[in-house]
Every structure is written in structure tokens, then in C-alpha cells.
């Protein structure tokens, strides 16, 4: 066990994967000599050389397009998109190509790759260094979307994602990157994809969150405890394919759900989960399922802590839902 923050956990996972599997290569802007603008690939260029830790030209189209080609030729590329906000030039390759390769070729070609994407607010990044572009990828059949909330899961999920034979978007919440340290095992271990985790048990209301907002959800759960409300907090961990079962089981118990996400509300995963709960646990619902999300505005700079669905906004949703 070593104390690690999320950046070092990601770094450790990448190092282990590269040591164990020579098919693994990293590519992206500034991932090489600099070690990434968040230092997630620090030291790897030195350890594995420029053929496996590759500084690319400034083109997300090129990064993902060539990574697909590498994957088709048997490598396991792990491209980094420097910020989630800059993934859009790669969307054509991700949505029209990576996501559909297995399907459109009847399994003749597969496209295993893990696209690492720092996402979210909380670093005073404003409009263009704070977005959480998860919705469009969840919506796209053929992509898996993962988002850890802590260093332990980050390492285990990343190692598991690298073993997938399908493209995975691995969203790393920047707000958590250096926010906490925890004990993380040395060496390889896996955290299975598509398995949510009940991180706090409770009987009054189910609280679903992931990534940076998981910590806020827990804080909110602790806060409402004083009012006698026990929230069951679920960390989705994999956003798609989502672990509906764990959420449904919990809602069947509590009869209530609040879901939290940083991304804007409209068509976010919150709405999807509400619909799924209606489909699968309608008769158990004792209160309207509720969303606490980023507002339907672009992400602002100065007021980012008013934009984000932090604990202060989760608390009233929890109490109102529990008392409904």
C-alpha cells in the first residue's frame, strides 16, 4: 500500500500496464517529455521511450484517428485528450469510427483503446477547461464511459479498461486529481467495469453520483444525517453500460432517488437514470426522482461554485425527497 492521489494512481496504472503489456502506447499533446499538463504521464517517457510515450502535434483528430489505426494493428493505444473541452475535434473519429468499428465490420475489426480525458470544473478553468462531455459518448452505442471518484478506483478501473476489447472513454475528474490521498495497493489489480458501488448505506433515499461530485454527495449525506435522514450513496463508476441493477435495488429499498452530475441537465445521465428507474421500479417510488446537476448554461469562470451541484445544492434535494 502506498498513499496516492488520483494523478499518481493513474500514473501508476499506466506504468504497470506498459510494463506488463508491450502493446500499450501513450500518445497525446505534451504527454511525453513534460509528462502531461497534469503530470499524469510523468516519468513514463523516460522509462519507456519516445516510441511508446508519444508527443503528438496539436490535433485531437489526428490523435484519435491514428490511435484507432494503431488499435486495428494490435496495439493498445491510450490517447490523452488534454482537457475534455478539447475532445470535440475528435468526436467524428470517436462516434463515427471507434464506436462503430466492431459493429460495422461484423466483428472483423475491433478497436480497443482507452481515451483518457481530464474533465470537469473546480480548477477555475471557466468555459473551456471545465466541461464534462460525457453525455454524447453515453448516447453513442459502442463506447464505454468510465469515471472514477477516488485514487483506488482510478487505478483499478484504468487497468480494467486497458484490458477491454472495446473503446473506453476514461474521464478523470480534475477536481479530485490532487484533492485527496488514500492507500492504494502496489502492483496490478482490477476494478470491474459496469459495477456501481454502494459507498454508504442508508434506507431513506438513494443518492447517485460519480467523479468529483461523489465527494459532494457524501458530504451532503453526512449533513442530512443530522436531520435523521440516511442516504444510500452509490458511486456509478462506470457511466455506460451503467449498472442499473445496483441503483434499482437501492431504490426498491428506499423508494426515493436523487442523482447528481456536473454536466448540464438537459439530456444528461440524470434524466436517463430517472427514466430507467421509472421503467424498473415505478411502483416503489414514493417521491419524484430528482436531479441536481450543472445548470443549462455554459460553464462560468467566476461563479463556478454556484454552477456546480455541490453539497449545498444536494442537501435540500435530499431533505425534500426524503420528506416528500
Amino acid at each position, binding site marked *: 500500500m502506498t498513499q496516492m492521489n488520483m494523478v499518481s494512481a493513474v500514473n501508476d496504472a499506466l506504468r504497470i500496464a506498459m510494463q506488463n503489456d508491450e502493446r500499450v502506447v501513450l500518445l497525446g499533446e505534451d504527454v511525453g517529455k513534460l509528462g502531461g499538463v497534469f503530470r499524469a504521464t510523468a516519468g513514463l517517457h523516460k522509462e519507456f521511450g519516445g516510441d511508446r510515450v508519444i508527443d503528438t502535434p496539436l490535433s485531437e483528430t489526428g490523435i484519435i484517428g491514428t490511435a*484507432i489505426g*494503431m488499435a486495428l494493428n494490435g496495439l493498445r493505444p491510450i490517447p490523452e485528450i488534454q482537457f475534455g473541452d478539447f475532445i470535440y475535434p475528435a468526436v467524428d473519429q470517436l462516434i463515427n469510427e471507434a464506436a462503430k468499428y466492431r459493429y460495422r465490420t461484423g466483428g472483423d475489426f475491433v478497436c480497443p483503446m482507452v481515451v483518457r480525458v481530464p474533465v470537469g470544473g473546480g480548477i477555475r478553468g471557466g468555459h473551456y477547461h471545465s466541461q464534462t462531455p460525457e453525455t454524447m459518448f453515453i448516447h453513442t452505442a459502442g463506447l464505454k464511459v468510465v469515471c472514477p471518484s477516488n485514487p483506488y478506483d482510478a487505478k483499478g478501473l484504468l487497468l480494467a479498461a486497458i484490458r477491454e476489447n472495446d473503446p473506453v472513454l476514461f474521464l478523470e475528474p480534475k477536481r479530485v486529481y490532487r484533492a485527496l490521498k488514500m492507500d492504494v495497493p502496489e502492483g496490478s489489480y482490477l476494478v470491474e467495469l459496469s459495477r456501481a458501488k454502494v459507498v454508504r448505506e442508508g434506507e431513506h433515499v438513494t443518492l447517485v453520483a460519480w467523479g468529483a461530485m461523489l465527494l459532494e454527495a457524501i458530504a451532503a449525506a453526512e449533513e442530512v444525517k443530522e436531520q435523521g435522514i440516511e442516504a444510500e450513496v452509490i458511486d456509478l463508476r462506470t457511466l455506460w453500460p451503467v449498472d442499473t441493477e445496483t441503483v434499482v435495488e437501492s431504490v426498491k429499498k428506499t423508494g426515493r432517488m436523487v442523482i447528481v452530475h456536473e454536466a448540464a441537465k438537459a439530456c444528461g445521465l440524470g434524466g436517463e437514470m430517472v427514466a430507467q428507474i421509472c421503467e424498473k421500479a415505478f411502483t416503489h417510488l414514493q417521491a419524484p426522482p430528482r436531479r441536481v446537476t450543472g445548470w443549462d448554461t455554459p460553464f462560468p469562470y467566476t461563479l463556478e461554485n454556484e454552477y456546480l451541484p455541490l453539497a449545498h445544492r444536494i442537501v435540500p434535494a435530499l431533505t425534500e425527497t426524503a420528506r416528500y
Partner: protein
Amino acid sequence: MKVVAKQDSTPASAASRKLVSVLDLDGRADPEQDPRLELSLVKRIYEAMVRTHLIDARLMKLQRQGRIGFHVGCEGEEATVIASSAALREQDWIFPCYREVGGALYRGLPLQSYIDNMYGNSNDTAKGRQMPDHVTARSVHFASITAPIGTQITQAVGFAWAAKIKKQDLVTVTYFGDGATSSNDFHAGLNFAGVFQTPTLFLLRNNGWAISVPADHQTHSRCYADKGIAYGVPGVRCDGTDALAVYAVTRAALERAANGGGPTLIEFVSYRTGPHSSSDDPSAYRDTAETEEQAKRDPIKRLRRYLERQNAWSEADQTAVEERLQAELNACIERAEATAPPSIASMFEDVFEDMPAHLLEQQAECVNGPRTRKRH
């Protein structure tokens, strides 16, 4: 091999952008440029060009008859497609646009496979999920055809780059049109190939048109081969209706790439004598006079004249080949039409390696649900 791609990336003088050509319109080879290919190879190329041409004609007819939904062929570009594919080694990979199925056939894709794809039936390698002509054929090192323009270009670079990293001896070639040079992936692909010196040939089919947009409205560059200069990728211009020139230029660039010499951009200048696809009617945007003029460069006729000059081809040969091909085609069509569509359950397969819970549910809902009265 006389025709050599320019080895450096110095901006070319006007002279170096001369069109490389071997054959004149009547099939006479310029002795200075003639790659002197074995006649058996030239015949193989010629027969494949004829085959592609016949298949195109037949598929277009099937489309008009409503028996298939769509077709996009390579009329006028048979030399570009076939002779360049013929110049590749077995281990090399093709990242195609949508007009190069002839290349896959040349490399051994069974015609039945292609025709099954045209019908999107249960034997289609793409399992009926893509439109006709969107073939996938790993067995002949032919990556999957898609519609979004340009996306195959960066993928070809990545594949070659991986080969370089893995020290595989292979070159990737990627085909695309004049229109595709405006795409994002053209830009990124050539740039990455230049920076990382990947063994990739960029085979630009300049067929004069991108649907209704003429090639000289697509860009203001002096010629398309010049675009390599922006990336330090050597550029060559070659008559794309001249099979021998196409072969020679491709082969030279291939050898260079295979020997660590890096990528090449080759502009094959030809002309799309047919419509863009079965959905298109060119009379809305171009003069038939232009088409007729360009049809004189007919790549098939030129190569046939070359063979005839060597006494290597006769009217009887032609008839025999055409009859054989038609018979083969008839058999494939008959079989494809008798083959069932893909199963409804198969619609949910291959989204992921394993089927996740939500797709199992949707599959069950669909399979057990009512059927539409609409055809498929």
C-alpha cells in the same frame, strides 16, 4: 523501375509536377517511362479492370431495377484503383475510400462476399449493417469502408505507425478523393505521417469532381500533389488513367516507404465518367461535352491497346473473359438473392465484445415484440 517519387520535400518546381505517364491514348508506351512489367502481370491488371467495369455496370443495373439499394462505382478510375492495388505486396494494407472494392477483389476477396454485401444479407461480412459497397475484408488486408469522408486517412497512418513501432514490414495505402483533401483527417493524417515518418502512401484519386463540386473549386492550390509540401511529404502527379504509370509510381513509393523512406502523396489524375453514385444525376451540374472528352482517356481501352500491341490480347480473349465474368457474376447474384437477411437478434450483436444488460433487454424486447409490415 524508372519512375521514382521525388525523395525530398523541397517545394517542387513547376516541372517536377509534370504528370507522370507511360501510355499514350492509343496504348503506345513511352520507352523512357515504361516500367516493362511482365505481360502476365499486365494481363492480370487488365482483366481485373475489365472485371471491375463489368461489375459496376451490372450493379448499377440491379440498382435501377430496385434489386439492390445503392451502388457507387469507379468508372473512369479503373486504372487508378486496380494498378495501384496490384503494386502492393501481400503484407501491405489498404485503407479504402468507397470506390476501391476492385482492389479487394484483385487481392482475392471472393466476389460472392462482395455481392452479399451489396444485398446486405446474412452472409455479408458487414452483417447487413452498412450500405452496399461498404465492404470489410480483413482476409485480404482491406480495412473497412465507411462513408464519412477522410476518416480512413488518419487510421491508415496509425496502422502504419504501429507497424513501425512493432517493426513489421508493411506499408499502408489509403485512397481518397479530391474532395477529401479538404477534410480534417487529410490534414491530420499527412501531418502525422510527415512528423512520424510512417510508411504510408496517400493515394489521391483526383477524378475531377466531389459530387457536384469541381476539383478546381475544392482548393486554390496549384495542384493537389503540391499539398504534400505543407507536411514535408513528397508529392507526385500521375496520370490515373494510365495503368502502367499508376503501377510504376505506386511501386516506387511503396519501396521507398518499405525501406524507411517515409510517406508519399500521389495524385492520380483521372475523371469520374459516371455519376457520383446511383443516387446522383450529373446532368444537373456538368456538361456532357466534358464527360465525352474525358472518356477518350478510357483507362481500359488504353491498356488493352498496349496488350494488343504486344500481341498479348485478342478479341477472342476479351470475349472469353467477359463471358466468364458474367457467368461468375450471375451465379453470385443468384446466390445472394436467395440468401436470407440477417437475423433480427443479430442487430444487437457486436456493439460490444459481450452483450451488456441493456442490450440483452432490448434484444429480447425486439425479438419477442411485434414485427413491422415493412420490408427488409
